[in-house]
């Protein structure tokens, strides 16, 4: 794939007020790759994105490379990055067309060429017919598309998006997420985008960097992240794994609701906790299982149902199962968990 490689070399960020927004971080984004920065609010995602953009400079030791050139001290206007801001930052004094063409106008491209490129980008972002509109007369979804169109029009080396969908209503967000995924892939520009929504990260990105409190905990492709999280935070944040606490004794893991046979070799369960995905737990008749729980609630979700169990361990356990089996509240059920679905993780 063509495109520019991004490298951060031990970039940290301490704000003047002493806030450590980012701990020293080194990451590589391959040419043409789409990387998601995923994490809860305040974990330093925007800060990292702004360091790549050139809107913040990293603390002294940090370096930012685009391909082989060190851009650490180059201001954003000379970095050739396209950026979609969380607030979109569209120019109210310009029409949709003028907004999208602004980057090209700055580059002193001829008026006809600007017109052609703007037409092209507007078609790509499904903005046909809106060119003369005022920014204030656009819906949220349209603004989002104008912001994206404006960022990609000058054919930047790198595309950066800060929570591009967070300002939209839930319904629209799902639709635009899929559109955005298709569009970004068709552009094949090296892209970094920030989100706090794991479904969004999984849907759009080639790789996801999970962040917590200014640290990158794990960078992997979405499937790997889901099936083999490096630590408990990643497991909980990506796909909401159940945490089961108990006591390990010769491969027998005893909990409040019974026991589980663990395979040989995982003797070193840290803090006596294991993690299991919601859909990896099967519900069977209690007589057939060594581990039991009580149904606290069941919620029909259309293509599945969610059962909440108590009395398995201290925490409640969520199970996603087929939508049509009936469970009474208070009913006792047995839990079947395949050994390979058990995640043993460091607790951070």
């Amino acid at each position, binding site marked *: 794939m063509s495109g520019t490689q991004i490298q951060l070399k031990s970039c940290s960020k301490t704000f003047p007020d002493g806030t450590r927004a980012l701990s020293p971080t080194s990451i590589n984004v391959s040419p043409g790759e789409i990387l998601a920065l995923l994490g809860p609010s305040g974990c330093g995602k925007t800060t990292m994105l702004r360091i790549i953009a050139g809107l913040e400079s990293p603390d002294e030791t940090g370096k930012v490379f685009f391909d082989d050139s060190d851009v650490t001290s180059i201001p954003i*206007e000379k970095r050739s990055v396209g950026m979609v801001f969380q*607030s979109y*930052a569209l120019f*109210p004094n310009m029409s949709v067309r003028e907004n999208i063409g602004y980057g090209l106008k*700055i580059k002193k491209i001829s008026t006809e060429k600007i017109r052609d490129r703007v037409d092209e980008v507007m078609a790509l972002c499904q903005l046909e017919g809106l060119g003369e509109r005022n920014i204030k007369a656009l819906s949220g979804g349209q603004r989002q598309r104008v912001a994206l169109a404006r960022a990609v029009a000058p054919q930047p080396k790198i595309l950066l998006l800060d929570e591009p969908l967070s300002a939209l209503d839930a319904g629209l967000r799902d639709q635009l997420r899929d559109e955005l995924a298709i569009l970004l892939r068709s552009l094949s520009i090296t892209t970094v985008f920030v989100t706090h929504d794991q479904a969004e990260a999984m849907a759009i990105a080639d790789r996801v960097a999970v962040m917590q409190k200014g640290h990158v905990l794990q960078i992997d492709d979405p499937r790997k992240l889901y099936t083999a999280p490096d630590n408990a935070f990643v497991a909980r944040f990506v796909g909401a794994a159940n945490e089961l606490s108990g006591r390990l004794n010769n491969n027998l893991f005893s909990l409040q609701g019974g026991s589980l046979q663990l395979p040989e070799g995982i003797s070193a369960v840290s803090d006596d906790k294991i993690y299991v995905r919601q859909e990896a737990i099967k519900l069977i008749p209690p007589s057939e299982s060594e581990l039991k729980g009580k149904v606290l609630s069941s919620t029909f979700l259309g293509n599945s149902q969610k059962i909440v169990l108590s009395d398995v361990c201290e925490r409640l356990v969520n199970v996603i199962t087929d939508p049509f089996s009936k469970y009474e509240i208070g009913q006792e059920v047995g839990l079947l968990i395949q050994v390979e679905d058990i995640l043993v993780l460091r607790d951070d």
Partner: protein
Amino acid sequence: MLLQRGNKMRNISPSFTFQLAVTLLACAFLLVPAVMSIMAGFTANYFKGISSGLTIKWIIEVWELYADSIGRSIILAIACLFFTLIIGIPAAYALNQMKPRFARILEEFVSLPLSIPGLALALALLQLYGTMSGFRLSSWFILTGHVLYTLPFMIRSVLAIFTAIDLKALEEGASSLGASSWQRFKDIAVPNALPGILAGSLTVVTLSIGEFNLTWMLHTPLTKTLPVGLADSYASMRLEIASAYTLVFFIMIVPLLVALQWLSTRTQKIGESR
């Protein structure tokens, strides 16, 4: 429906009546002298009253006596506007880019002339430049005072709109598209700040045309302005001329004030709609 309405109409509370009365009284208190004064400007002989006949000769006489003061005031106001624009807008832009704490200190500093009485400011100017007689005797001297006095209003007005439109975010957007700081200033900052710039301009013009304290200290017999002329006519002319002068003053200043009021509510709405 109709019946209910009627009921409501009859149910005007005594406290409302009282409030209305007080409001009308206050209006009358303010307006009656103004109306009287304006009428006096049209009366042939004020001491004989309206019966002496209506005339515009006083207004013509005011024009003949004070046309140059009025003209000077207008030119001063325009020049003052010019300087506050070319100094004030870039200054507000720079302040907006600074770190908040630093900017606040500086803003206090440029706002100092607001809290200093015009007389003190005039005295300072006289002490500093009084000996440079060419400058001292020209209208430039008054202009300097007016610019010093009105500049903070321009800066504040522009700074307020920069904050209201979240200029920082807009500029980050523009810089990501490759715009240099000059391009951001002319393409983004100024066009989006126009309502604030307009409000600031009207304030400056209104203040400059109406300014008396400072101007009175700085003026010479050859550099009178509209309000200085007004005081002069009160002190030395017959009442009808002074009244006619008041009328001229009103005609010049009231439209400015109305426009200012209209603009400032509009600017407020821009801030709120964000």
